[in-house]
């Protein structure tokens, strides 16, 4: 008799299911209201991808969908990494008559980050959201794109700890000066570094999308170059008080940066040097501050390089 009670309770399980009926779209979207704040916490979604990875456009579309909901607080960076799906096809028209997939999107910094975080090795598409959940021996920082929406929602609710301002002035032609200013919004102890990079939006080139090879795919926010080293530079001071600010300036020459990528491509396995043809009007400066102890990105900011 007593035993059957156990099962009667367990039969209660049978009611535990949510059967839903359409319409499934819920139009009561409520992005967090930050209109009153000077600084808001932004999210960096690093999307590790490759131009012959057929499932990768789904991840890029997921970023667009997240951006549609949360607006400018979502900043993304597409890093083409891993050998198998990222290497370019030869420029030689006898071997590659249709000139498909000849562009080399890879960069030395992208590969270094890929190796450190083990992303392409775990399969593409793969990504990180503000590099959270990194541990010495773990793989939790790697997030499949189906997790990005919920993780982003949680991250957006976190307290903002830094403010970042980016300014750029054209000196002449390809020479541009960039200043990045960081301001601590609370007192913090720990080691923090700043990384500044350039990304190019709307690069039109080949991409495998499912079973289709798209020659006019619009690649969004592709990592071009880092203005700091891969792991960044220290913010001045070891402990930071609320209100402490730090200024960093960079003088860059776009043709030099472009040439650097071309040379890097030639030095890579099956690289063909086809990494140039940058459109300065589509370039963006992305700057982020991260905690050295666990790589977590505490604030990120994005600004168009040339727009006023």
């Amino acid at each position, binding site marked *: 008799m007593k035993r059957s009670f156990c099962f009667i309770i*367990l039969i209660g399980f049978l009611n535990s299911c949510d059967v839903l009926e359409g319409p*499934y779209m*819920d139009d009561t979207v409520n992005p967090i209201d930050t209109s009153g704040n000077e600084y808001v916490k932004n999210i960096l979604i690093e999307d590790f991808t490759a131009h*012959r990875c057929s499932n990768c456009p789904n991840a890029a579309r997921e970023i667009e969908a997240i951006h549609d909901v949360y607006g400018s607080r979502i900043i993304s960076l597409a890093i083409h990494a891993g050998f198998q799906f990222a290497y370019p096809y030869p420029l030689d028209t006898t071997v590659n008559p249709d000139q498909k997939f000849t562009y080399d999107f890879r960069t030395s910094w992208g590969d270094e980050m890929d190796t450190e975080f*083990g992303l392409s090795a775990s399969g593409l598409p793969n990504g990180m959201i503000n590099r959270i959940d990194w541990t010495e021996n*773990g*793989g939790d920082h790697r997030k499949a794109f*189906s997790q990005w929406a919920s993780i982003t929602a949680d991250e957006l609710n976190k307290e903002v700890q830094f403010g970042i301002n980016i300014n750029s002035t054209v000196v002449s032609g390809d020479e541009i000066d960039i200043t990045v200013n960081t301001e601590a919004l609370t007192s913090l102890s720990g080691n923090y570094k700043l990384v500044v990079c350039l990304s190019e939006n709307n690069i039109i080139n080949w991409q495998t999308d499912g079973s289709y090879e798209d020659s006019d795919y619009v690649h969004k926010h592709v990592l071009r170059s880092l203005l700091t080293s891969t792991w960044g530079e220290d913010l001045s001071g070891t402990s930071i008080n609320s209100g402490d600010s730090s200024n960093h300036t960079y003088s860059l020459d776009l043709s030099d940066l472009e040439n650097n990528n071309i040379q890097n491509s030639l030095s890579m396995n099956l690289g063909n040097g086809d990494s140039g043809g940058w459109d300065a009007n589509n370039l963006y400066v992305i700057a982020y501050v991260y905690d050295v102890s666990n790589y977590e990105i505490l604030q990120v900011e994005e600004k168009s390089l040339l727009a006023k």
Partner: protein
Amino acid sequence: MKTQALTILLIICSFKLAAQNSEIHGDFSLTLQSYVEDETINAAAADEVVLNNAFLNLIYSSNNFTVGLRYESYLNALLDYDSEFKGNGIPYRYATYSIDGLEITAGNFYEQFGSGLIFRSYEEKGLGIDNAMDGIRLKYRIGKGISLKSFIGKSRTFFTYADGILRGIDGEIDVNETFGLEKQTKYILGGSFISRYEQRSNPKFIIPQNVAAYAGRLNILNGGWNYYGEYAYKINDPINSLQESEMNYASGSAFTNSITYSQRGFGVTAEVHRADNMLLLSERDRTGKAYIMNYIPTLSKPHAYTLLAIYPCATQAMGELGVQLDLFYKFKKGTLLGGKYGTKINLNLSRINALEGGNSMLNDNIDHTPALLSFDEELYFSDINLEINKKVNKKVKYNAVFAHQKYNKDFLEGKTPGEYGTLSSTIGVIDLSYKIKKGHTIRIETQALFAKEIDSVSKKQEGDWIMALAEYTISPNWFFAIQDMYNYGNEDESKRLHYMNINFGFLKGATRFEIGYGKKREGIFCVGGICKVVPSSNGLNLSITSSF
């Protein structure tokens, strides 16, 4: 947690002196492999040089009480295991107690409902799969004919647990036994229910937090006949995306049916199964085999010979339709084909294809349900093979297999359509053993695979293979083997490689020691339709297993 488990074990042990019938036993396994760089086969060196997987199982049992644990060590894990297997720990510990027909388990346990279509928690060390449950399980038997089981828990992934809370209940009733029927036909009915709770929210779409699946099964036995059928149904289980095209609210379903007839010297099995949107994950938004909670085995023969398994079929739990037929026959001694000792043959046919228009899909803009039985769709895998097993005389025995397989490499390996196409292979295997004298036997195996691609493809093909193996065994303790696989038909001349291996082993009682050296081809190793990618490697491997 570890210290708690050990403390419990120590306390139990101290009561051992007072308790009767108490025993401890266990088993141990260690696998060590060295990885050396080899550019020809694309083998990478491991930074650690030597990688190892090891585990130790301990079980203490006394009367109606059992306590067990398993210590696992990955320092670091072999390259064919997920890199998340890192470090040491006791990821498996449990205590089980039975009284008056009720069995209670607290801690980790493995469980399967029916054929596993809606739920199977199991371990497959060869693949690196271990989704043991951690929670409470109850099993109860009412009389001789009714059995009930129920559980609630979380599922293991590597050294942690997935987010979803799983609850299940399963009942099985042996109709004849329960109602005291004396018929020749026997009926066994079963039903199961599983539900997963995972806290989720989506700003754009309504998302269920509790997802349930049901299954019903029927087994009819009559003399040499045996029919088994199971049907499973899963309600809406979408991922947490913000893209409409990724949101799928369609329900999932799967069924499996098999009919078997067997008598002395003859047996036949026919099976059909279909799966549509039936992947049940312990944490919905994750990908990877560590999160799969149900088991839909691939409907193809598990081959033991290398070249027959070089292109294995992975189950498509999201959408596939498969059929399989097996025929076993023994030609009697003295007949023409039987010869002096009799000849055994096994004919197997299997075919797996896609669902019409893809799996079921439902959201505000799409509503698609594929046809129930359509064999005209894209072929994923097919296999026709004949195995002959014959003893020629007191000294010579042989096994011969002839097979013809079609393998849709583009789809099954996630490549772009048109890259590799579908491979059509014709394979022959001859496995001959010769008894030199008492206890000494030499076995020689030769295999050949002739491949050609169907449809024009853009990549260079792997082409034909040939393999040879010689194994010398001395009963009861020793074995020595040398083998070579040669890809002589590769379109890319630089890839026409030899994969040579030598193995040497010693067995005594329950201890086995094996050492091997050589190159391994990069490939896919599958067990039951779940696959892992094995990277190419060159190095030494050592394995020790023992039980006490």
